[in-house]
């Protein structure tokens, strides 16, 4: 049994990392997460709903986030996710790794 990986992503694990990062700012439901990623990336990254929900399930299964039911701004039942201590740790590790990889890629490509 290995860590669940997202099969459809171009950069594997990126979506997971983004979701975790977004959740640093507080409790959010799935739709809000997708919206925030889109906004913060300046409309460059669009999260496919088809990969978002499997990603949430996976993160929850790994114990990095926890979902609980609450009431949304428009007064409907929605599932809010929050980061767990484990998730925080995992995010730190992932972002360090990601920085290394993108740095290396950038050096090769001559961007730096």
């Amino acid at each position, binding site marked *: 049994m290995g860590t669940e990986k997202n099969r459809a992503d171009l950069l594997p694990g990126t979506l997971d990392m983004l979701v975790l990062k977004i959740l640093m700012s507080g409790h959010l439901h*799935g739709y809000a997460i997708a919206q925030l990623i889109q906004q913060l990336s300046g409309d460059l990254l669009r999260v496919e709903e088809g990969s978002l*929900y499997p990603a949430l399930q996976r993160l929850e299964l790994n*114990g990095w986030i926890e979902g609980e039911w609450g009431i949304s701004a428009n007064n*409907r039942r929605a*599932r809010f996710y929050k980061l767990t201590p484990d998730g925080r740790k995992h995010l730190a590790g992932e972002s360090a790794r990601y920085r290394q990889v993108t740095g290396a890629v950038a050096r090769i490509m001559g961007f730096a």
Partner: protein
Amino acid sequence: MRAGTRWKRFRRRLRYWLDHGERQRLLWEEMEFHIESMAQDLIAEGFSEREARAAARRKFGNMTQKSEEARSTWIARWMSDLAQDLRHAFRGMRRDAGFTAFTVLIAGLGIGASSTVFSLVNTVLLRPLPFRDPGRLVWISNGENWTIQAEHYSDLRESNRSFSDLAGWSGYYRTGDKELTGIGEPERITSVPVTGNLFALLGVEPAIGRPFTAEECQGRYSAPAAMVLSYNFWRRRFASDPSVVGRKLMLNNQPATVVGVLPASFDFAGIFSPGASIDAFIPWPLNDKNKPGGNTMPVIGRLKPGATLQGAQAEFTTLAKQLESQHPERNGIDPRLVPLAQRVSGGVRPALFVLTCAVGVVMLIVCANLSNLQLARLGGRQKEMALRAALGAGRSRLLRQMLTESVALSCCGAVLGLALAAAGTSGLAHFHSFNLPLLESVRIDGSALLFTLLAAVACGMLFGLLPALRVTMRSLNEGMQDGSRGSSGGKRHGWVRDGLVVSELAFACILLVGAGLLIRSFLRVLDVNLGFQPERAAALRIDPSFRISSLAQQNSFIDDVLNRARSAPGIVAAGITDVLPLRDDRSFAVAAKGQVYEKGHQPEGFIRIVSDGYFDAAGVPLRQGREFTERDRASSELVAVVNDTLARTLWPGQNPLGQAITINVGHRVMSVVGVVADVRHAALETAAGSELYMPMRQTGDYAAMQLVVRTALPPDSLAAGIRTALRPIDPNLPVREFVKFQDLVDRAVSPRRFLVLLLAGFAAFALILASLGIYAVISFSVSQRVQEIGIRMALGASATDLQRRIVLRTLALAALGLALGMAGSRVLSRALSSLLFGITAGDPVTFVEVGALLIAVAAIAGYIPAWKASRIDPMVALRSN
């Protein structure tokens, strides 16, 4: 990932899975919320509500698929696929009821046979003997087959260091040795004298009561003070009444107290004397000088912890040499040590091995047959598969679906098989008269269930794999284009099916040859010259219930019995013997008087004490001289009759009549008055040894009196007449033991009969399957080529021509299968050698007969579709598509 995290995740996954219904509903709700939010945003941007919702749904896509993808993080995909495949499989089964029924039946028969044989092998060979720590128990024989003298046993027990203890029993007990009186009907029971420590050594505790005390083991041989009942006897005779323990009963008019009842698991007879029934155990006083002397004792030892069999063997060889030099007056001793389990089941190992292989071959034929059937059936489902593939089902997914179907089918077969195996094993367990060890404890247990399950899965995989591979391979490239029914499905397809049929025939041929060889051996065994005539002969144990104190008293009893028996209606001849052929035996050293033999080359002779009339009654032909007569009495000259072998051994090339012969017990000298034929006394397969007959009227040294009668009527009708005739002599005479000689013969050949029956059954099943297989393939190929046949006939091909072509094709397949099967049989039949009798493993008659049978069956199987093909109306055939 750390183990703790992994474990937490596993628990979470399990929890999700356990309430996956609820979780799925919540996931759905969450996604609905997402769509709703999306729609709200769109409305805010100015879309109408209807448009907004439609757009949101469109954008979100297929919700079912999304939720399935999300769900797949916690439910393994294969589980939901499996459930789906199973539903599919069962739907398919219902649709194709004929195919399903046939498959379940065939697989069930195959699996049932396998499980039955497995249970048998498991009980006899694999499962440990029902004793404490049976791996440390050792059988100690004297030479290959003989038993040990009690005095040697006592000395060995004292002086050896390898065994924690030795125990034994008297191999000298006879069926119906003791007459049980003092409670209900008098009855002759079979009791085994045992050393007091036997039960403790085996680790068997009486179910009720206690084993023998040391005191009880010091009594008189002829009057045991105590007895322990076997479980079966206790149940049958005393209706499982526990209060019988402590009661005093009479054994041969001597009081004996029942001190215990052995547990049901202690099947002494089933292990040490298969086919017999033992009613009770009595203590065997080794110190009693009046017990029968000589090599009478089978011995068992329990190895000390740390001691090895090799070490013990070396020690016993040394000890035996010392004993022989210290006690030249005793019989020789040559201890051979083998593990007890090997001794008990070693004899049937080859037969069970053959059965196991045979059932394996049957399973292969079953699989080949079902594979073929499945192939034909799936031909029709080619398009379904192609459609699925086109809709995105992966090849491995299709493969899995097909395998699920076949495994499900074979599991249904296994249910039937299990029922058959349960019936089969309980049938086996009730063959009391079968001379096979442990047969009574054969049953379906946990390991047999596990085996059945594995067999079912393996069978399903095996027969499903080939069709599954074929179908999925085809579906991806050609399936959809395969428009017309008439196209024959490609050359390769035909090859696979032909190959399966050829292998079926080859396997069936191997089984038939094996069964044929064994059947022919069996017939040879039945044809053997026994040296006596079992038909219309029967024996009744008639030891008087009073004690015989003198030879004169004994002889008047004999006179009385014989006169009355001979005058009973329907009796042609009557005589008395102490041992029955194929059941009891004992041997002494014998010598031509005055001849000195080297030590170790002393001739052994089987001793029979018989009265006048015995040879006539048993049907043993006289070769030379005369029989015993009433005039051979205690006062007259001591006489003897020898068999051919003994005459040849002691006096090669001389006339045995009038020669003097001695035996090592009592050192009596007798004059040979007659020569009779050799009697196969040990087994039908083994030639008679030397036999020495002594007249009963001249000796009291015998353990039983068996009245043997020959009759003009069927022996069954005799019992009552004999009883009436003998009642005046002894009103208490029990007559339970009325033994037909034919039963003795049947029991002696029962293991062989058992093997032959099973193997012949398997071979017949294989033959039926193979002929069905060849029939199916030929008629399938005919049905695929209806148009071609129509054209041929329209162009003038005659019906005979057509038939000949089809039959020839069938015969070509059969010939190929036969050639392979014969070659295989030639190699494999050598494994049967030890079970054959009177023929060799390459017996040409068997091979030719099997070949002819298979060709004939194949010709019939091919002729039926050929005949049908020739009736095809060309016009109908051409129009049909």
